[in-house]
């Protein structure tokens, strides 16, 4: 570990950086290299190589090709144009990027896309049934659970999970289990009201 760490910290020389940028430029013009994983324990992708990734997003299966360093958040926003999921801090500190992966709420900004192979992702775009909004979306509107709206997709994804997990039994419990979603406009009291109403309504989510 120690040695590895020192190497990591050595920092990149200008020369290394230029070498890599040239490699990057070359790659951009070439067809992306797709590596088939022969076995589960093979090397899957080298530097700058893209790897195949199958993801189900909001009910639709996508066969994609991504660099290992791409986060799930960037993949959703930039490759799939699902810009409902927001980037607030990009460091797990705000919850704006919250999505469900296999039913669990996570911060998509700290999840490498390639680590979600074969998984099922739900974003804010996947909640409504045609024109009919999800009960949590309805409730946020009814209770004015937002001002600018930037944190709202993350709040709503987190709120649905909060109720499903069974962590919405009181105002205090909701505040605790929604603490991973920061709202700069301070809409917290109304967000809690919106969640309480959905919880009390008992609709299937």
């Amino acid at each position: 570990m120690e040695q590895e760490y020192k190497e990591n910290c050595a920092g990149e020389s200008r020369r290394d950086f230029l070498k890599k940028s040239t490699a990057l430029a070359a790659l951009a013009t070439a067809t992306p290299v797709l590596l088939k994983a022969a076995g589960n324990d093979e090397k899957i992708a080298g530097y700058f190589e893209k790897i195949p990734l199958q993801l189900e997003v909001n009910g639709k299966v996508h066969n994609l090709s991504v660099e290992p360093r791409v986060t799930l958040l960037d993949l959703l926003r930039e490759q799939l144009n699902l810009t409902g999921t927001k980037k607030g801090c990009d460091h797990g500190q705000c919850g704006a990027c919250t999505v469900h992966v296999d039913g669990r709420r996570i911060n998509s900004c700290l999840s490498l896309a390639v680590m979600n192979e074969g998984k099922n992702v739900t974003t804010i775009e996947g909640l409504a049934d045609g024109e009919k909004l999800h009960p949590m979306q309805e409730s946020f509107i009814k209770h004015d659970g937002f001002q600018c709206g930037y944190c709202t997709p993350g709040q709503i994804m987190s709120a649905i999970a909060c109720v499903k997990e069974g962590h919405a039994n009181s105002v205090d419990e909701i505040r605790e289990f929604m603490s991973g979603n920061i709202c700069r406009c301070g809409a917290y009291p109304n967000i809690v009201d919106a969640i309480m109403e959905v919880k009390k309504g008992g609709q299937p989510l």
Partner: protein
Amino acid sequence: MINFEFVRTSTVKNAIAALSKTPGAQFIAGGTNLVDLMKKGVAAPKRLIDINSLPLRDITSDSKGILIGALALNSEVAEHPLIKNKLSLLAKALDAGASAQLRNMATIGGNILQRTRCSYFNDSTMPCNKREPGSGCGAKNGYHRMHAVFGASDKCIAVHPSDMCVALAALDAVVHTAGPKGERKVLFADFHRLPGDNPELDHHLQPGELITGIYVPANSFNKQHYLKIRDRASYAFALVSVAVALEVTDGIIKNAKLSMGGVAHKPWRLISTEQFLVGKAASKETFTEAAAVAMTGAVGLTHNRFKIKMGKAAVREALLQAIR
């Protein structure tokens, strides 16, 4: 984020082999600490080995204790009936950490191995002996409100940020590892290191080793509590935290284990306080005296001196809440 090789692996043996193959390789589990540090340019692994498919996620028990797989999620462990019923201290500590989203990603192994760190470590424009040995400690003469009051060195005053580890230290957990030289079992209290002259090392995991699980021996603690004091009510690192596990019979303390978080480079066991408590009445008076014992030897700097007073109050309060 700098590019890296990416490897998926599904057996412990192959994971260990894949790590040894490339210098600068690292395992990745939940990614909540590593990806964060990679984005900041603080970590730059040459190869990432995704260990999420390893069969290390089960939580099992026998008459002697509970074994938690290294890849069990923080949220899964906190919600597990075995943990809720038998190790409520651990469940409480887990629930006090990070956010619901992060606990759904973070693994037990990753939580133990998250870097001991501070804001100077996280900022690659600042000097930091932990990030860049020999570059100096920016915190010592800088802003050090969050920093250590126990066991710090001239080289480093960062604290280990985990809540879960504070509980595991009090519960005498054992870290199970596997590596190129075979399997090992390490007592939790001996797992993390104090900074000394080598703050770049956080713990005693050997090169190439993988944490496979955590074993928590069965106990007879009938009073357990985890108290965390932070700048806001939730979703913040501890200023000070206290894990308490007591066995109290007829008002007398038969056995006591305590540890603190937010005060040292590792989860800080309060051995003298434990010895002080055993055999005494579980009373306010005893706890007030115990709290003074707990903070004996603490050394504060300009901005973190408040932690000594706060620590004393927190130890007393945690003990009181445990017997409530």
